[in-house]
């Protein structure tokens, strides 16, 4: 149909209009407008929710008891709400995975579905036919109901959403600087100790002997399972092995002198710091940079995932249902 046919002829300026209607420029403009309009129409279609995610009171009850199981406490309202939100996120991922047909492609999912179907329908005539069984599994909505399949699909979907996350050297350097507890080196100490299990007085005697005659040391004192020589320990590590008082004494000791006796839960300790390794700020080597790169990448992936899920969620309608209203289409059965 020609566009001109749509316009009623006018008496006075019919000829002019007729010319205009036949002008290529106008044709172009009108066609453009039609295309624009239909695209708008399609876009409107797209923002219609892809599906409704139902949150039933049974789901909420289950989330509540799972929380309690893991924490031995009942969740407060905020905690429960966050649990529900997480549940919805997972449902969105699950719906997306199914929409993309991952349940038909993922070998783990296929295997699991076939296994379930064979278990359930051992006597069915087509029990040997994978395609038929998978079709039946799909018709039953099994992918959304089976815990293993569900978790696998969610995981696969998450992996798709974070693919392509990258980091650069500058960001890694900043990350290292921001995590000194992981990448900076605290002050460390090499030290010797002599242990006396019973009394301070005997420890004092040995200390005086050590100060006079350092050669006596190898067999001085009592057996101590951790031994007598310690290398490269931070103050926190000394505290974990002995206790805080020994760690404090090591940190305060002048290099090369026997000090003590220092009390610990085990008895008495005489200490001699041989060397202090100064603390170092974060100037990581290549291996540490790579480690930090992986850690940062993981953080970025988490952020990317969070953002991607938020975007996906806007395409679904979430509906809270009482159990009586819930149909099987919620897809998320426990």
């Amino acid at each position, binding site marked *: 149909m020609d566009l001109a046919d749509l316009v009623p002829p006018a008496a006075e300026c019919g000829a002019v209009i007729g010319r205009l209607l036949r002008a290529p420029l106008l044709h172009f403009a009108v066609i453009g407008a039609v295309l624009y309009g239909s695209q708008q129409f399609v876009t409107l279609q797209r923002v219609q929710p892809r599906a409704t995610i139902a949150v039933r009171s049974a789901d909420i009850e289950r989330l509540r008891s*799972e929380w309690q199981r893991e924490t031995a406490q009942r969740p407060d309202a905020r905690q429960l709400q966050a649990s529900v939100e997480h549940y919805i996120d997972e449902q969105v991922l699950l719906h997306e995975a199914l929409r993309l047909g991952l349940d038909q492609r993922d070998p783990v999912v296929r295997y699991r579905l076939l296994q379930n179907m064979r278990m359930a329908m051992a006597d069915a005539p087509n029990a040997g036919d994978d395609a038929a069984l998978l079709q039946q599994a799909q018709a039953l909505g099994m992918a959304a109901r089976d815990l293993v399949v569900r978790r696998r699909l969610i995981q696969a979907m998450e992996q798709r959403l974070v693919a392509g996350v990258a980091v650069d050297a500058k960001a890694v350097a900043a990350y290292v600087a921001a995590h000194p507890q992981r990448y900076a080196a605290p002050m460390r100490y090499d030290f010797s100790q002599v242990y006396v299990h019973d009394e301070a007085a005997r420890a004092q005697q040995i200390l005086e002997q050590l100060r006079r005659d350092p050669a006596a040391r190898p067999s001085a004192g009592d057996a101590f399972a951790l031994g007598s020589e310690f290398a490269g320990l931070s103050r926190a590590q000394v505290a974990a092995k002995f206790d805080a008082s020994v760690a404090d004494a090591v940190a305060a000791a002048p290099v090369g002198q026997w000090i003590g006796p220092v009390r610990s839960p085990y008895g008495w300790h005489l200490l001699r710091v041989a060397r202090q390794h100064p603390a170092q700020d974060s100037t990581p080597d290549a291996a540490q940079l*790579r480690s930090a790169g*992986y850690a940062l990448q993981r953080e970025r992936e988490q952020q990317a995932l969070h953002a991607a899920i938020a975007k996906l969620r806007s395409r679904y309608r979430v509906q809270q249902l009482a159990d009586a209203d819930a149909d099987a289409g919620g897809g998320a059965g426990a």
Partner: protein
Amino acid sequence: MQRQPFFGDLHVHTRYSLDANTQGTIVGPHDAYRFARGEPLGIQPYDENGNALRTTQLARPLDFAAVTDHAELFGEVEICTNPEYVEYYLAECTLYRAAPEQSFIIFNLVAVGLPELPQFPVPAGIPVVSDLPVIGANGKIPRLPYCGVDGQRCLEAAKTPWTDIQQAAEAYYDRSDDCRFTTFVGYEWTGAPLSNNLHRNVIFESEVVPGLPPAYQEFPREELLWQALDAQCGAVDGCNYLTIPHNSNLSAGMMFETEDRFGNDYTAEFAQRRQNAEPLAEIYQHKGQSECLGSSGIGAQDELCGFELLPYNNLTGERFGGLNTGPPMEQDFLRQALKAGLQQEQQLGVNPFKYGFIGSSDTHMGTPGNVIEDRFTGHAGAGLNPSSYSGGLTDVIETSPGGLAVLWAEQNTRESLFSAMRRREAYGTSGTRPIVRFFGGWDYPSDLCGRGDFVPVGYAQGVPMGGDLPAAQSAAPRFAVSALRDPGFALEPTQPLQRIQIIKGWVAGGETHEQVYNVAGDPNNGASVDLDTCESTGSGFASLCTVWADPDFDPAQPAFYYARVVENPSCRWSTRQCLAAGVDCSNPDAVPDGYADCCNADTPKAIQERAWTSPIWYRPQQSAVR
């Protein structure tokens, strides 16, 4: 450099084990390692800004950890579904993998007798991590170097669980001189025919690992697993592995069978392969202890074998009303296996069951080292079924928080720790952190405990835990054992030591025997715990030490010796939770939901935390020398 004890957990499940956790665990390998390092771990749920509403943190960080997710569900989708790969890897892609532990009943009752796979060729010239640039093209972190049996495969493939697990291990391994934390790449081979547990954790020494972990579906018996690992790892430069069996207590007699899968007796070669692949066994974890049952006849009355003993013999547990299980069996416990190993050694010249000991958690919550009785949150996995939970105890009452692996090593690096595992200089604990040294030799001086050079003399005149006694140099071997109590920490009150025992097993006239000796401390020290308050009373020891000579030694009898260090009694996790809930068993109607097991008289209320050292073996000289 003197060896130091390093504490860790070699059995950790995260989100990649599909049986892990309940609330759709989002704790992944990265998070698990950060938790192990002592960093606070935000756990779900999260608020609208992505901030965790809960955090959890270890009071004391670990020194090392290995995430060991079930390999059977890694399923490398991207490889198998990308048409460019499918032709190349068709065999692999069509051999789908096994079900997770949670479905072990279905799977293992159905899937028996799977085909064996031909071996893949092994590539040469694998680059190592240190050869790679820090930042690759386009700002991407370079993928991990070793991409399996065909080196190209995963260079192109997208991220998969197995590569994420490797990256996490790389991200949190401290390669600096500080050596603060060590990770190991690992996985769990989840074999359990008919629910009889043969599970192994596979631990790799370095970042050079197979492209896909050999799983149960393709390699359905342990010897096939070792074969696959030898081909895919052992034959590759820089790749070393060991396998650690766990929960032999739940194998219904299978873990320490003295036959191969065809029913043939062990040969020397077969025994040697097992010994090489498995220097260690997990003696204690979430699903109970595998040390001893305490029922093996004369001389074997060992009341401490009642510790965290599960009342069934396979993974089915109490499901199906106990129909697919039976009572625990002596041959499933390590003490009995060590004795059977001595018998095998007499016949074959090689001991197939030469196991040192470690403990671990088997957490399915991604929380390595979360093993203290107080505040036990449950480990999920084979524990409580979440869908039936409605408050109450946080795990099935007979399960346990699990324990720790302790390795004596020069420094906290993969090489050093792995060597310690190989030579079995290792011990397991039930979750606390006592320090234990155990040496065996022939001429330790009797006054060694009163000397400051106990450690150097221990090494110079004998062998540490996990070793073989040198040739006899006197009438009886002597064992030097020294222990320090766990000093505890702000949030982790601990008990002093009660005693040290040495457990001897031996073979005489073809028959096996065992004897438990109290060698230090005082079994009757009167220490106890008030079960109504969990308050401890009585005194114990901050340290214990002795040099003990075997009074019944016969140089003709092969034997092993290990030490067990026992703390004063304390409340079991369940007792603490029952107490906190105010359960009163004299009024059954008032017991809150989920706490009925508090009144179950079969479950002990108190425990004695402990450590088990790896054994030291004695072998008569006249028998075949290997």
